[in-house]
């Protein structure tokens, strides 16, 4: 199906259709409340003082001058944290405020509350902090080699993990290797960090409205730092302006609550863009060495790899990111033998953690670069080498886990190859200079453009791993034909709020679905990440609706002398499949409210043993991409002309939403391929703004042609696989491969082994 045909809204609003999103009108009218839109008269502003040094000892903090400024209500530091000082998603190693040392540029040192953002800015300026600057730890290899002094009591090695599978001494007659670098990417959500904390009047607790990915996880960390029982900390989801992993860690939550509780007044805090670059975790920059051994026919015999991930100053989810990366070393290919070493290290760089793809982006760039090298060494083209090794359901992965997910790798590749090439000629239609690489810069010459084609294929685990007890909760109430759903699932733009209504309509046969406020007034839904919410929260909503439906059938059965086991929903009616009875669901639901809460869990996973063996993942999704690029090889300019993709989605529950994830994910993957990188020099970020951290604009984004591979996944409650991450994973190596193809056609022989690919890498200086 072509993307232009999918998902136009129809009358049908259940699963498989593309009804309009329930918050769509509010968003286009500008009435939808993002967390930054919350405030009110008399609400104070909060702001954060941050370290300018990557590594320093704090000698003293003197806030006295700030206190004297008219309009400043309070200044707080580490001394004012009543509860636990450290927080973190896996290890609690990050302090609410730095007390004795700062470990990265941007680390919070103090916070203020005042009557106006400008007053806050002046107050921050007036706080005197004396630092003794120290030499930062910046080279991950120093940490791996044990040459770096400990920069944290927990040490500098965040995680070391080995994977050994099969015959680690096996070799192949064809051997290709490379060392690949992936730069630090930023999630760059548009909705800047924002929160509003409202202290209870006389209660001691607090209500926090915040844009986040996981309400309950935030609550646990916040309560611990505030020294409050969890029941006294209530979280409400403020409208979220995108997340992509950057909201999985705490940023301003504890600070905002501390200010509000200290003053007994509501306080709001907003980050500005430069601050946002400092205030959330980033994608791990990585150096990955890989060596593939194969038969002369191109069949992979063994993969050796060494991953070094720079986790920055605090651990965040580095341990899990590394696990993901190394367990995806083989990619979507059969691999009987493997030796992999992985290291996630602490340095004085910006902290890293979750970003869409979660370690697999880095691994995929490496393994896809390797597959192209392998193909070339065996005389096979990029498609052939991949088809020859394509994984299938039943194959065993390098962790010893059997791939029991539906695994249509071959289909993804073949369907991608089958998509039409762009009809735009090299150099663009009508010689329009805006269509050349470099666009508005008008420097490229259409006579010197080379068109390259490249491929990338990925596998991506869905949900969390290594024995994590993940679950999602949902509540459904049915009365008078209206189904009311309550869940704590963070809607970050992906459209779960749309899907939830579709599930209820399909399961219950009602059309009217109301969504309750998203808050901690119901059980946890887990994080909006890991491509997990359709499976997990979708599973929970389905279970809650099914429980309601069962009670409805019991009631109808009782009232009409029917066996509930023979009842079913047909359209908007309850029908007896064994007879002629039919009754509208609306009518059947008037005799009192039915209220059910359900918890959905996926099957258990295991930790890895010391050889990295274990069933550590739940399920997998697959995707293939093809990139067409035009390159000015003399100036090093790139224009991505088209992206083609076929993605294994299981079942497209809302084709328009799936399209949205595919196109949006491709844009982010394109960004990593050619333009997005946080530059740190001597541990100091140099491009904390949209002027110098380049995001793809409408001029950078090419048309996308896509095929959805729908082979329902039996393990998934709705047959659907998560679709959020795969689109941003293999598109990056596909674009890199296309650039290499263009450069090779131009007769250049230098290697390009990093992303983002910069002009200097293309030129080969």
């Amino acid at each position, binding site marked *: 199906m072509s993307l232009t045909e999918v998902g136009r809204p129809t009358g049908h609003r259940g699963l498989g259709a593309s009804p309009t999103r329930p918050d*769509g009108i509010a968003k286009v009218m*500008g009435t939808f409340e993002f967390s930054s839109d919350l405030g009110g008269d008399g609400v104070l502003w909060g702001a954060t003082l941050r370290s300018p040094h990557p590594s320093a000892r704090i000698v003293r903090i003197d806030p006295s001058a700030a206190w004297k400024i008219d309009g400043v209500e309070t200044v707080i530091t580490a001394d004012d944290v009543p509860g636990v000082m450290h927080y973190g998603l896996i290890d609690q190693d990050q302090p609410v405020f730095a007390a004795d040392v700062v470990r990265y540029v941007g680390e919070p040192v103090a916070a203020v509350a005042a009557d106006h953002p400008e007053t806050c800015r002046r107050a921050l300026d007036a706080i005197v902090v004396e630092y003794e600057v120290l030499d930062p730890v910046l080279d991950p290899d120093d940490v791996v080699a044990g040459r770096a002094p400990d920069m944290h009591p927990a040490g500098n090695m965040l995680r070391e993990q080995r994977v050994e599978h099969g015959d680690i001494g096996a070799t192949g007659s064809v051997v290709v290797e490379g060392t690949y670098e992936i730069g630090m990417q930023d999630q760059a*959500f548009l909705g800047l960090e924002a929160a509003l904390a409202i202290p209870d009047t006389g209660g001691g607790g607090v209500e926090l409205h915040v844009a986040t990915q996981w309400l309950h996880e935030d609550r646990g960390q916040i309560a611990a730092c505030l020294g409050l029982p969890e029941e006294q900390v209530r979280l409400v989801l403020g409208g979220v302006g995108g997340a992509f992993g950057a909201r999985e860690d705490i940023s301003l939550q504890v600070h905002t609550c501390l200010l509000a509780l200290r003053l007994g007044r509501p306080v709001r805090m907003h980050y500005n863009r430069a601050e946002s670059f400092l205030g959330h975790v980033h994608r791990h920059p990585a150096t990955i060495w890989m060596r593939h051994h194969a038969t002369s026919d191109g069949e992979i015999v063994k993969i050796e790899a060494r991953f070094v991930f720079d986790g920055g100053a605090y651990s965040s989810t580095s341990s899990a990111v590394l696990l993901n990366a190394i367990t995806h070393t083989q990619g979507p290919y059969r691999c009987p033998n493997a030796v992999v070493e992985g290291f996630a290290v602490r340095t004085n760089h910006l902290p890293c953690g979750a970003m869409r793809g979660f370690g697999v982006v880095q691994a995929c760039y490496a393994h896809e670069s390797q597959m192209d090298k392998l193909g070339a060494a065996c005389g096979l083209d990029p498609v052939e080498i991949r088809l020859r090794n394509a994984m299938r359901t039943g194959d065993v992965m390098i962790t010893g886990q059997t791939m029991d997910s539906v695994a249509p790798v071959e289909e993804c590749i073949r369907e991608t190859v089958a998509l039409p090439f762009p009809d735009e000629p090299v150099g663009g239609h009508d010689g329009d200079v805006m269509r050349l690489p470099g666009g508005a810069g008008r420097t490229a010459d259409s006579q010197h453009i080379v068109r390259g084609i490249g491929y990338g294929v990925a596998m991506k685990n869905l949900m969390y791993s290594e024995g994590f007890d993940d679950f999602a909760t949902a509540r459904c109430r049915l009365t008078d034909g209206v189904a009311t759903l309550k869940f704590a699932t963070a809607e970050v733009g992906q459209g779960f709020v749309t899907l939830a209504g579709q599930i209820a309509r399909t399961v219950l046969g009602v059309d009217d679905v109301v969504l309750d406020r998203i808050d901690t007034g119901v059980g946890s839904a887990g994080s909006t990440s890991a491509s997990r919410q359709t499976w997990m929260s979708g599973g929970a909503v389905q279970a809650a609706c099914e429980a309601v439906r069962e009670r409805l059938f019991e009631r109808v059965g009782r009232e009409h002398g029917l066996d509930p086991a023979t009842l079913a929903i047909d359209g908007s009616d309850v029908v007896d499949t064994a007879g002629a009875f039919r009754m509208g669901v609306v009518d059947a639901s008037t005799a009192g409210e039915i209220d059910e809460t359900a918890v959905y869990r996926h099957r258990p996973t295991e930790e890895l043993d010391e050889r990295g063996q274990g069933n550590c993942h739940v399920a997998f999704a697959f995707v293939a991409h093809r990139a067409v690029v035009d390159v000015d090889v003399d100036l090093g300019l790139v224009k991505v002309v088209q992206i083609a993709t076929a993605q294994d989605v299981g079942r497209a529950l809302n084709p328009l939403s799936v399209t949205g994830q595919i196109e*949006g*994910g491709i844009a982010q993957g394109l960004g990593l391929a050619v333009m997005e990188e946080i530059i740190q020099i001597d541990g100091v970020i140099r491009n904390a703004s949209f002027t110098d951290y380049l995001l793809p604009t409408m001029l950078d984004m090419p*048309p996308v042609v896509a095929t959805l591979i729908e082979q329902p996944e039996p393990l998934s409650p709705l047959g659907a696989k998560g679709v959020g991450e795969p689109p941003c994973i293999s598109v990056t190596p596909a674009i890199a491969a296309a650039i290499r193809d263009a450069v090779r056609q131009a007769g250049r022989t230098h290697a390009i082994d990093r992303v983002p690919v910069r002009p200097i890498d293309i030129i080969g200086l």
Partner: protein
Amino acid sequence: MSEIYTLHVNGREREVQDAWLGENLLYVLRERLGLMAAKGACEQGECGSCSVLVGGELVCACLVMAASAVDEPIVTVEGLGDAPTDVQRAFVETGAVQCGFCTPGLIIAAHHLLDQQPDPTDMQIREELSGNVCRCTGYGRIIEAVQQVAVARREEAR
């Protein structure tokens, strides 16, 4: 902080009191006048989330000193009407809205584009809207929404 000035916003005179002169138009619209549609995502004119019309021109409200915008008509999303416009409806229908943070700025920019150029080419749409960054959608559905409106308006005009 005791300056008073008057802005013409969405057809009404709005008095701004007790304002610090350094406030930008985005801050004044949102925090002083309660018009929350325009959003701030970069405060340096790079993302277009704060796009409004000042004197009929498409500007980034974050780069306009509010007190200097006193003599020009200002139009925000709130001023487009109580019922959704054809552009707003098209954005919803085509899936051009995900998180929605870029959406108000894009609605203003799309209206401005179609008023200036009722029959834009794909390239013209991309170039004119290149000042509006979206991180969620990848732009495909946004372009479709604008094209859909252009076609519908042409059909209506016949």
